[in-house]
């Protein structure tokens, strides 16, 4: 038991050191590099909290995609000029803010220590109803069946975010390809990596999606891996992103949520409740929705990392 505790404390100490490093970093690039390492450690923390589903998502979205989003944004900002930066607060104000934040941490820490015992839990209710869903992974069961509406809204949020990001494009860049242009790398290690890694990534993503029904994994994790592989090809300059006006791309982003809504409406018509799955077909329907949603999630995540179309010239 003490070995586990040592592992936990090691993880917590590393995470704290990295978080302090992020806040203190002099350069934005360093802060982002530390943030990515922090995300990797948090992934292990989630494993220790018995949340392997969350760990997969944190590793893929929290560390991988967020990190690359911020790196690419820093690169773009460096080229257009840093813009106006607000004054950093003076010493007295900084100390006051520090005290306030310490108070917030102390209050939250007290709340964590004062959580009720025994803890309230819905685990028993989930266990009692999971058999009806024909799924083995309780988290997938909650996401797709008991709280299906949340998942639908979450998929819709991604589509809305893509629309929001695109609508922030400057007028002269509108309808251009998302993201800043990159120079093409014809050969060398990067081009090799960008050619060999994506096929492996696609296999891993399909595997993660498939096991998601019964083991940790699922559409958001698989979608994030697919998005990362597409972005890798983009970073090497091997893949060209279709312009925002491209209809197939827009259809891919919208297909998953649209299918999910259609299934929901069919449930309303035939079963009498929105998102009620047909009897005996629960698992096939969920699998179909998950597959189409994965493609939509992957496209939406990749487009979100790419950001709005930019009008600036090649670097």
């Amino acid at each position, binding site marked *: 038991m003490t070995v586990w505790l040592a592992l936990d404390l090691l993880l917590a100490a590393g995470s704290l050191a990295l978080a302090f490093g992020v806040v203190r970093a002099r350069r934005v690039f360093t802060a*982002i590099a530390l943030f990515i390492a*922090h995300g990797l450690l948090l992934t292990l923390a989630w494993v220790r*909290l018995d949340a392997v589903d969350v760990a997969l998502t*944190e590793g893929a979205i929290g560390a991988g995609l967020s990190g690359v989003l911020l790196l690419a944004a820093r690169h773009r900002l460096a080229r257009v000029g840093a*813009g106006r930066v607000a004054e950093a607060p003076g010493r007295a104000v*900084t100390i006051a803010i520090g005290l306030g934040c310490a108070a917030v941490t102390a209050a*939250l820490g007290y709340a964590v220590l004062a959580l009720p015992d025994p803890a309230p839990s819905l685990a028993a209710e989930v266990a009692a109803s999971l058999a009806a869903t024909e799924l083995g992974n309780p988290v997938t069961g909650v996401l797709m069946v008991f709280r299906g509406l949340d998942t639908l809204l979450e998929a819709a*949020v991604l589509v809305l*975010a893509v629309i929001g*990001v695109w609508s922030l494009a400057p007028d002269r860049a509108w309808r251009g390809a998302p993201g800043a242009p990159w120079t093409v790398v014809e050969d060398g290690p990067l081009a090799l990596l960008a050619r060999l890694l994506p096929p492996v990534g696609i296999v891993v993503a399909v595997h993660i999606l498939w096991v998601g029904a019964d083991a940790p994994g699922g559409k958001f994790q698989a979608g994030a891996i697919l998005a990362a592989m597409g972005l890798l090809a983009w970073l090497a300059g091997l893949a060209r992103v279709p312009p925002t006006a491209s209809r197939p791309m827009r259809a891919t982003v919208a297909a998953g949520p649209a299918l999910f809504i259609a299934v929901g409406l069919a449930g309303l018509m035939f079963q009498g409740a929105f998102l009620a799955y047909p009897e005996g077909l629960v698992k096939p329907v969920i699998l179909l929705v998950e597959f189409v949603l994965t493609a939509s999630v992957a496209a939406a995540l990749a487009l979100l990392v790419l950001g709005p179309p930019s009008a600036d010239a090649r670097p």
Partner: protein
Amino acid sequence: MSGTVFGLLGAALVGIGLFGMLVRAQPLMRIVCFNLLGSGVFLVFGAVARRGAGAGFAADPVPQAIILTGLVVAFAATTLAVALVLRLADDEDEAPR
């Protein structure tokens, strides 16, 4: 036990992230620190899920599913914030000085 350790870590991350968000001036730094704050909130909730273990599950699956949703929505919010920062810089670049 891990629940308590990582719950306290989450509380600390909330404080550190909030501090960085208020003290650092660059917009991208603020977004990074906001993400630190968010991961702290999720960790506290994850500690709650861990304590709710029962019925053969190692942790309460309902909060875990909601954390998953939260991670994706937080990512979407981050991308919007980054797009806003890029647009602001772009406009200032164009404006006559």
